[in-house]
């Protein structure tokens, strides 16, 4: 068994509110109480997110998507963190943060269109408060800090008005922490005391590289070096993540500055559908993490609390099926973009080179159509 399966380094305290069996644990600084209805909503979010993943993976296998970057195993980290957000907060996701999109009301078809190759993400970043997915590792982090600096300048920090005070979340992986830009982002956030939460989903792997190849230091300690307090949380414990991220967001909104949250979790699937993890990691490691499944754990907790019953499970299963069906149908119906639409948004104001190229393109297109018509007409005659 490799070190990733063994859990965080010795001596590193990890916030946990549910143990691996789903039993509730006390923590001196963290606690969270969910009303039954909300607890079931959380379960629903977890289940739908996993279903999205399964469905997208299948669609990719069928050739309907070009690629898929799965979130399986990381549901609690994403759903827990997303639930801590307020309407006015803004999220800068990586490319695997589907849980945030669902939580922010983004139609998942606007996400699948990205992986189908129809666009680079079809949602409205302003409406949903979710930036487009960023594929260049760590490149969303500095913009997130800058956005937070803008929030400060708007006077939307520390007013005490819960509808006004705003925080920003920057999502990224363990591998991302090696990028120079990540260090710059942490430092800037500290220097400007920006209202930003750095949410690192340490899923133990950056494609084929285990986290020990990225760092000799636990990731949240790196942040402390940069002046940003770090917290380690069990990323497979949705309650712990919710509580830790909620505190961090509250701190940011109130003017307390940035926090780095390391959500210790695991990428259960391949890096993407183009990846073959069999080449680099042991099944035993994956099996060990399966024991810590975030959804099973939360389910067990809810059962033990008497909040969850079979009837709800059935309704949820039916909802998930319908959800999956909608995704399948939606993707299959998704039209390719109009070719000439690619010319539309390169610049806000016309750029003569683009204009000339578009005109040329359209002329060639028209010629081509004419040729086709001639050909067809010829055949008809």
């Amino acid at each position, binding site marked *: 068994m490799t070190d990733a399966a063994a859990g965080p380094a010795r001596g590193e305290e990890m916030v946990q509110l549910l143990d691996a069996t789903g039993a509730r644990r006390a923590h001196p600084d963290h606690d969270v109480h969910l009303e039954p209805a909300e607890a079931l909503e959380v379960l629903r979010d977890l289940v739908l997110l996993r279903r999205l993943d399964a469905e997208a993976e299948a669609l990719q296998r069928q050739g309907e998507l070009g690629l898929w970057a799965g979130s399986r195993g990381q549901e609690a980290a994403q759903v827990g963190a997303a639930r801590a957000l307020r309407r006015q907060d803004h999220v800068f996701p990586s490319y695997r943060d589907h849980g945030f999109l669902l939580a922010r009301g983004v139609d998942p078809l606007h996400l699948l269109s990205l992986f189908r190759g129809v666009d680079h993400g079809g949602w409205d970043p302003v409406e949903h408060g979710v930036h487009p997915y960023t594929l260049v590792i760590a490149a969303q*982090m500095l913009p997130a800090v800058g*956005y937070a600096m803008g929030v400060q300048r708007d006077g939307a920090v520390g007013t005490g008005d819960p509808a006004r005070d705003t925080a920003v979340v920057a999502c990224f992986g363990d591998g991302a922490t090696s990028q*120079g830009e990540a260090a*710059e*982002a942490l430092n800037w956030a500290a220097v400007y005391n920006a209202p930003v939460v750095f949410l690192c989903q340490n899923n133990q792997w950056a494609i084929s590289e285990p986290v020990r190849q990225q760092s000799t230091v636990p990731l949240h300690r790196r942040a402390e070096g940069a002046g940003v307090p770090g917290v380690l949380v069990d990323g497979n414990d949705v309650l712990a993540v919710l509580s830790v991220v909620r505190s961090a967001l509250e701190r940011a909104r109130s003017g307390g500055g940035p926090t780095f949250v390391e959500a210790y979790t695991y990428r259960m699937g391949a890096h993407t559908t183009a990846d073959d993890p069999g080449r680099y990691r042991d099944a035993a490691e994956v099996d060990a993490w399966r024991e810590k499944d975030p959804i099973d754990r939360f389910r067990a907790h809810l059962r033990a609390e008497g909040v969850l019953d079979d009837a709800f499970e059935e309704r949820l299963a039916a909802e998930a099926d319908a959800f999956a069906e909608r995704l399948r149908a939606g993707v299959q119906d998704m039209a390719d973009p109009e070719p000439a639409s690619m010319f539309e948004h*390169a610049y*806000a104001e016309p750029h003569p080179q683009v204009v000339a190229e578009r005109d040329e393109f359209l002329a060639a297109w028209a010629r081509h159509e004419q040729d086709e018509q001639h050909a067809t007409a010829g055949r008809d005659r």
Partner: protein
Amino acid sequence: MERMPIAKAINAGLRAAMERDPRVLLMGEDIGRLGGVFRVTDGLQKDFGEDRVLDTPLAEAGIVGTALGMALRGYRPVCEIQFNGFVYPAFSQIVTQLAKLRARSRGRLSVPVVIRMPAGGGIGSVEHHSESPEALFAHVPGLRVVYPSSAHDAYWTVQQSIASADPVLFLEPERRYWEKGDVDTALAPGEVTSLHRARVLRSGTDATVVAYGPTVKLALDAAAEAAEDGTQLEVVDLRSISPLDVDTVTESVRRTGRLVVVQEAPLSHGTGAELAAQVTERCFYSLEAPVKRVGGYHLPYPAARVEEHYLPTVDRVLDAVEQALAA
């Protein structure tokens, strides 16, 4: 009409933009208290405060990356890169984020960030302070690249760049910072030459010399010298590298039949190449000679005591003109 050096004109342009629009912010190293190593931002922090004129940590990716984030929040940040050779740590933010966000979001996001930097050589400086990176930016779709040559243009184009909804790389001819020119600060918006138009600075019939930024003065000097020998050169100041105003250049070349492009950057894959390709395509039958290019050599910028031999000179421009005329 006010007479001022280019550095001062940019300062005045920044001030005007900041007064007009409270969302305009300046970010960079040493731009606040010091006023920038060339004093381009002199006095602005004092007048607009530390919240609008930010002395940042020493990290160019940080400057551009956070500027981008502020732009997403509705601000209009103007970044200063202290010298052109230090823009490369920010290259990934510029090329993969700034240039693409509008297209990536299908027009939903705007990132009106201006990145100012001194460019060009001839100031006797040490390494990395004298290069001309315009081609690297002009090759990247999604960016605009502006390079004024005079105080008047500097004053106006910096404001137009800030007003642009697209990201703009704004190059400043560092060896001309202290050259004075008349600035008409009282123009009405409609009277200002548009940001991406080239300008004919001198009319001539024998050949067209196209220049931009620091080489404009060279072209004008060459034209004056040529005139003494009876050769009438038309001088065009490009003012903008992306987009290129090829219409103005071809219009001129159709009349003169000859074109020389003068740049400080190395020739290979440079602005002269692009102009040569486009102008030749459009004016194939009016060109009496192939387009000649005069530029920096394909060498890492040399030590200061050799730079006068590396950079284009009036003699080299005139040599190229002569060759064009001889063809």
